[in-house]
């Protein structure tokens, strides 16, 4: 064992002390200081922690840090190394059940704990998954494939294209449903781009994650997995969807259209919401309840279209009052080909930006307007400022969410640089990224405190 492994995570004074007494991590020891004796197991130390303390797990299960400079002796009595292992059981195969493929891209959907860094390590093989969520076998015969192991903020072009291609290959192999495990932070970005890269899918493509990692008893991971696997195996919803908790209670999940969904809370379980419309379906362990009927239905053919075109030089600019035009200038000077603006109100920016926008247009940069209010349409005819901007070449993109517009512009510019073609791609809806109408229940942010809302939340578990 290398020194690195023997004294895992330790450095400085603490490392010196451990070396002095030849006390390796996982040693069962009695540590003496001037004042007291501590009996326990030396644990590896987090690499981010300071170099002055030795961590031991006491017999009671608690960990404490002892300052290395106070340690007068370490008596080694044995050794107990931890073996992390999720009980692995062969995933049962039932010929009557549909075949579902679970792709892993990272995130914390099913995981175990890394004692050292505190990070969670994904559990992923069918055996591991069956060991931790045996209920999955009620719905399907599960196959898994780890595509990537990245946090969701590190997803990029390569991962998106790779995932789209992997989906295409699985559909070709005749799978009945696809589930994609994904970190939640950028799940709606990936859901959007997959909605464009994978078209005409004959089977459900369900993205899933968890807001509480599965090393916690209250995790939403197991239930989200069950819901998503059930939706992939049994539903007739052949769309790219996101399947996450409806309320914070362990009750049901919602299937959101991949282009209309957004993460709306930094930590809540029910963080994903359909914006400007309502979800496609509710799903619990026993049933799938469609809320709409205009989704694409499951088919038996394999006629999926995979188009992984992508242009990376696209930016999203979140407008704020007093924004200086050099923000736009720097994008122009850095060779950007497309800009999505999240404007105020109906889609506005201030006048000082106009010359820069004009310059962008002249340089052939494609500029699209969305709204930072998230709900509602861009409407640039109402005020003069809007009309002025359209003259500068800024194109309103209806009620497309800013992140979705960004993803779509990347995809469109990957196919063409011709303004008319790009405009045509951008403004022709593929998967409800723009809709013709916003239903009256498409905008519902219930306001706490109002008597009728309070009555509602006292009756229904949210």
């Amino acid at each position, binding site marked *: 064992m290398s020194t690195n492994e023997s004294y895992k995570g330790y450095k400085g004074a603490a490392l010196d002390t451990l070396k002095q007494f030849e006390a390796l991590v996982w040693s069962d020891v009695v540590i003496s*200081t001037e*004042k*007291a004796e*501590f009996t326990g197991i030396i644990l590896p130390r*987090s690499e*981010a*922690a*300071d170099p002055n*303390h030795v*961590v031991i*797990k*006491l*017999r*009671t*299960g*608690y*960990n*404490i*840090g*002892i*300052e290395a400079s*106070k340690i007068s002796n370490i008596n080694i009595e044995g050794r*107990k190394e*931890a*073996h*992390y*292992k*999720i*009980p692995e059981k062969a995933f049962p195969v039932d010929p009557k059940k549909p075949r579902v493929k679970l792709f892993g891209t990272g995130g914390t959907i099913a995981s*175990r*704990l890394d*004692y050292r860094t*505190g*990070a*969670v390590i994904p559990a992923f093989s069918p055996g591991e998954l069956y060991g931790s969520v045996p209920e999955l076998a009620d719905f399907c015969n599960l196959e898994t494939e780890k595509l990537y192991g990245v946090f969701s903020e590190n997803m990029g072009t390569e991962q998106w294209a790779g995932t789209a291609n992997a989906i295409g290959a699985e559909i070709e192999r005749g799978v009945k449903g696809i589930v994609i495990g994904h970190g939640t932070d950028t799940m709606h970005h990936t859901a959007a781009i997959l909605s464009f890269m994978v078209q005409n899918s004959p089977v459900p493509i369900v993205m899933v994650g968890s*807001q*509480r990692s*599965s*090393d*916690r*008893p*209250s*995790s939403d991971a*197991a*239930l989200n997995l069950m819901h998503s696997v059930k939706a992939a195996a049994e539903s007739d919803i052949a769309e790219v969807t996101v399947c996450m908790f409806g309320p*914070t*209670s*362990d*009750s049901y999940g919602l299937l959101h259209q991949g282009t209309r969904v957004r993460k709306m*809370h930094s*930590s*809540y*379980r029910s963080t994903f919401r359909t914006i400007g419309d309502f979800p496609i379906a509710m799903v619990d362990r026993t049933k799938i309840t469609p809320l709409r009927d205009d989704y694409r239905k499951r088919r038996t053919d394999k006629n999926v279209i995979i188009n992984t075109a992508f242009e990376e030089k696209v930016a999203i600019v979140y407008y704020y009052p007093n924004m200086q035009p050099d923000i736009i200038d720097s994008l122009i000077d850095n060779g950007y080909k497309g800009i999505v603006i999240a404007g105020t109100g109906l889609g506005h920016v201030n006048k000082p930006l106009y010359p820069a926008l004009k310059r962008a247009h002249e340089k052939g940069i494609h500029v699209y307007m969305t709204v930072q209010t998230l709900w509602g349409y861009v409407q640039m005819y109402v005020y003069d400022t809007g009309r002025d901007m359209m003259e500068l070449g800024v194109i309103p993109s209806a009620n497309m969410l800013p992140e979705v517009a960004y993803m779509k512009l990347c995809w469109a510019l990957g196919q063409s640089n011709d303004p008319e073609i790009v405009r045509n791609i951008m403004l022709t809806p593929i998967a409800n990224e723009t809709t013709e109408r916003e239903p009256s229940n498409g905008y519902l942010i219930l306001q*706490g405190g109002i008597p009728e809302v*309070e009555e509602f*939340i*006292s009756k229904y*578990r*949210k």
Partner: protein
Amino acid sequence: MKDFEFKPFEEMTPEDYATVGFKSGLEVHQQLLTEKKLFCHCPAGQYSDVYHAEILRHMRPTLSELGEYDGTALMEFKTKKDIIYRINRKNVCTYEMDDTPPFLINEQALDIAIEIGMMMDANIVDEMHIARKQYLDGSIPTGFQRTAIVSVGGSLPYKDRTINLIQMSIEEDSCREVSDIGHRRVYLADRLGMPLVETVTAPEMKTPVEVAEVCEIVRRVCRSTSHVRTGMGAGREDVNVSVDGGTRIEIKGVPKIKSIPLLTYNEAMRQWNLLKLREELKNRGITPETFEAKIDDVTRFVNKTHYKPVFDAIAEGKVVKCVTLKGFKDLLKWQTQTDTYFSREISDRVRVIACLTTQPNIIHSDSHEVTLSTSEGQKIRKFVGANTEDTLVIVWGSEMDATTAANEIVIRAKEATVGIPSETRQALWDGTNGFERILPGANRMYPDTDLPPKKITEERLARLTAALPEKYWIRENWYKELNVPVDLIKDLSTSIFGNIFKIAVSEMGISPKLASTVLIQFPKRLKKMRLNVDILTEDIFHNIFSAYKNNKLSKDGILYLLVRICKSGEYKEDYLSPLATEQDLKNKVKEKIFRFENKKLYNDDNKKVLMIGMVMRDLRGRINGKQVAEYINNNIN
């Protein structure tokens, strides 16, 4: 095994407890007096049964840091409960509901915890690591309690010896249980997240009374910081008990110290009698290896029964299972605790693990109660192939619950051949205890990945040491030397006003009797008058004592002044009227005599008493009653 029979509680002697090898340790929980909760910014100590919303959760076991599942975790998972949290928007935020990560630890709470550790001569840890202690019963929505060791070791003086401490931790309090019926358990979340410390003593108490006395000491040490909460539920304890050859059993959530002796007595008896039961089983040739039991569905033999619980169950489409315990005849009525028998050990498991919460949940052939008819009993006995030496246990419920129950009955009966199963048990009102859950091990401890380790700095320790009150037993001895009234010593020794007492007596020359009366007895009297004594501070008392010292306030005027302060909510210099002079007294008496002229009193002797009262009413706070009485007695006929 020693030949000893437990006597009634009152007749047990310390020697009897020594005979059975009684041993007990404590885990004393004490809520800290903070403004806010431990890991979020909700107000602390606001309780209400009113709730605005409910949240539903389930708990799943996870792997421990050492890569193992915990026994309790698996048990709780078997029970498959819907957990409902009732939340009040004023005292619960999204943190408690596990929808927001923890905020950094409440520094005020940590200060108090360190202070308590110091008062117990414990070693404060250099670097605190916050752990997650799993609780799958749902009492905490995350499924774990955030907890961290603050100090290790330490000791407390007790009689002529010391009681050693193992450790003290700071942790967040759990929910209050509202109900637990069938597969649904309901909690109120108001108490959740309140900061508390848990002090763990070594198992060094030798009799039930010692356990209670040591608990009182821990409680008083905490109180002597004057930074802890008091009142219902602010202090609770878990009591660990074992006897020779027994198992360490934890009785959870004992609300009152005075119920400890009877509870620990009953637990010791339970263990002793279970060990004797094992011996009896062995004599009958029943060991873990030879133990035999079987489970049968007997629904069809009892579907016309007159026994209502079973009749109703069948009417609802439930099933009836029979467990045959080979050679167990009469053992279900083997006494375990006072008026409690082995059948309850079984019934408890069925209640908790199979969620069959309606009592009775089992019937058995060792009981003489009228349940199933004789012919029903005979049919079942014949069907399952039992003989007269066997005990039959009948349980009913849904197919799933009845199966879980029957399996659990077999498990518990078999455990009797091994000894005393490791469990946590709940304190019951009658001094006995019931099964709560399988004893969790160290395996349920995980590092909290949401919060970094926290170094406890030398500067912090120095600051807290400087402000540390004296230990209460040292204070007590000093008060005794000073002849402080005996009935005030105990309260004064843990009072928040210990410091001002010291100043009044040592520096201002106030008599210990007066100082202690003013600081301890007067606030109690004011409280009885329904006045808010919380506004009385060290400063106010300092002002009062110095006014008295400087002859600006009479002894009798102190209480009167305190009433004015409590009523107005503040202390004002002009509440102090100048002391009455001899001349003031003379004038006042003259004025009052005038009012008695031309009046005939029924009893003339009362005249002086009435006079004293009238004069005192006018001069209250400015003169001592004794002086008024003397003057009137000497000068009025």
